[in-house]
């Protein structure tokens, strides 16, 4: 649990002006945390998923995700931006927070995958998106998600 949902995985007040820069931020963070060996494969994974259909949701939140052999363990990387970036989304609003799901190719353990799915599901609960956007620290973000994941399902 802790490795997937830890405060170190959350960056608030990041700056990026394009979707590609957001991807780079996520990839760099993944490498820094030891989730992936190489930033380029993470970016490629995110881009290829995006091509299948946008991951932008509503209220400024997107869930870019990647499944790639370059990713060594399933994890969540969360980036909240100072200013929103253009991103095709369901309500046509720009994106200010990316909750990124990184999945190793051929991940066998279903526990981790289910946990990631729980996080995604949490985003649909009333109020959660607004709370995430307003959270003041990485700990608060993780606290929010943990609380809802635990209480959910």
């Amino acid at each position, binding site marked *: 649990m802790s490795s997937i949902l830890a405060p170190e995985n959350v960056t608030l007040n990041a700056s990026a002006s394009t979707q590609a820069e957001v991807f780079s931020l996520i990839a760099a963070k993944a490498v820094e945390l030891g989730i992936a060996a190489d930033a380029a494969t993470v970016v490629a994974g995110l881009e290829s998923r995006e091509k*299948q259909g946008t991951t932008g949701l509503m209220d400024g939140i997107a869930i870019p995700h990647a499944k790639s052999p370059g990713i060594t363990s399933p994890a969540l990387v969360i980036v909240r931006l100072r200013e929103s970036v253009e991103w095709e989304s369901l309500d046509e609003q720009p994106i200010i927070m990316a909750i990124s799901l990184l999945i190793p190719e051929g991940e066998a353990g279903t526990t981790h995958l289910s946990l990631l799915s729980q996080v995604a*599901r949490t985003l649909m609960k009333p109020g959660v998106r607004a709370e995430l956007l307003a959270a003041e620290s990485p700990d608060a973000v993780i606290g929010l998600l943990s609380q809802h994941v635990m209480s959910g399902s």
Partner: protein
Amino acid sequence: MAPIHIVAATGCPTGIAHTFMAQEALQQAAERLGVSIKVETHGQVGIENALTAEEIAAADGVIIAADKDVNAARFDGKRVVDVGVKAGISRPEALIQEIINGTAPVRGKRPAAPVAAEDTEDHGLFGDTTVQSGGGFQARDLYKHLMNGVSYMLPFVVGGGVLVALSFLWGIYSADPEHPEQYNEFAAMLKTIGGTAMGLMVPVLSAFIADSIGKRPALVVGLITGLIASNGGTGFLGGIITGFLSGYGMLLLAKLLDRLPRALAGLKAIFIFPVLGTFIFGSITYLIASPMKGINTSLQDFLSGFQDSNPILLGLIIGAMCAFDMGGPVNKAAYVTGVALLGDGNFFFMAAVSAACITPPLVTGFAALFFRKGFDAKTRDAAYVNFALGATHITEGAIPFAARNPLLVIPILMVSSAVSAILTFLFQVQVPAPHGGFLVLPVVTNGLQWVAAILAGSILGGLIYGYAMQRRINTQQPQPSVENEKEVLV
């Protein structure tokens, strides 16, 4: 009013996030709108919260919010809202409202939103013959319905045709007690059994065309009208017409009876559809049987006249058709005609079609045999396997070769098949079985000439194809000595 119950299925390509968000969104929206819902998820970890047949049957409506196949065919006959996974996330209430209001179309009856579904159902002799119900009326559907009928009909023709042919091993009159010199009881039995199977050909064709269009109610009517047509001497053309008539007719009838009170729903399937459908479409078939018989007879006459007066042209057309797409619609058009004519006792046409279908794989085999250097080792092995495929009438064996260089290979195959077919006509070969390749040789009339005709076309094609491939290799390697050295090193 009873509480509304909805079943739903969600799925997305990665199966991690959207699938479950759509599930959550639908569940919450259902709660807000005061309806109950069960959502099945097609995620990375597999199907969770799976819907049972009873739950589907009991549901007032179905919501599909998926960008992948969620096996939608099981929802046929239900009111279905069919959208992408994102719509499930962004506007779940609107989707549920469509079910509540009853505005969602019934799947498999009226055009529904296109489904991006992959066919996972079984593939018969003719490849994919399953029908995606719903969707608009398309020419492709007509072909699929027809092929569904043909693929069910084929085993009847094979079983019946071979038994009838075997009975002729005792002589052409072996089943007729009027000819005591040839009469054999066992042969007579074979012919009776085989003849019965052949007699089912047209009804089965009609029944399963209808079934493909309108499911079980249409199957009943299709079988009955097919038998009426068959008894009326309309041949296979009659069976095709009654099949489509019954299928689409029953769909129309179902639509007209849609307004009946729900209490009568049970009565509909077991009483109203069979009685009304059989009466209406049986009468129509009864009335048109005689003109159809005329058309059928004149077509037979035309073909056999063609066969006698211009065997070369007919052989050319058959050969070219069979090799054009190797198992595709053009090939099947020729093939189905051959099968149908078997039922009418014309064995010449089938002989030509079989020859033309056996030839393409053999061409690739001979090409690799004669021009070893034109093919790499793997391709050569595949080509040799094609001797076995060709000998058993599996034209599809040539497809990998044609797919690699279609513009070169397909014309060569068409010429080769045409040569085989023309020679088959000229040698007066008769093949009474619609499949099996050289396995049916014992029942082929003029079997040796038939093999010779096929080999002639195949070897000719093999020489041209192999030579062309070898030249290609040579021209691609302007410095053959260096390349050869490398090859030796490797």
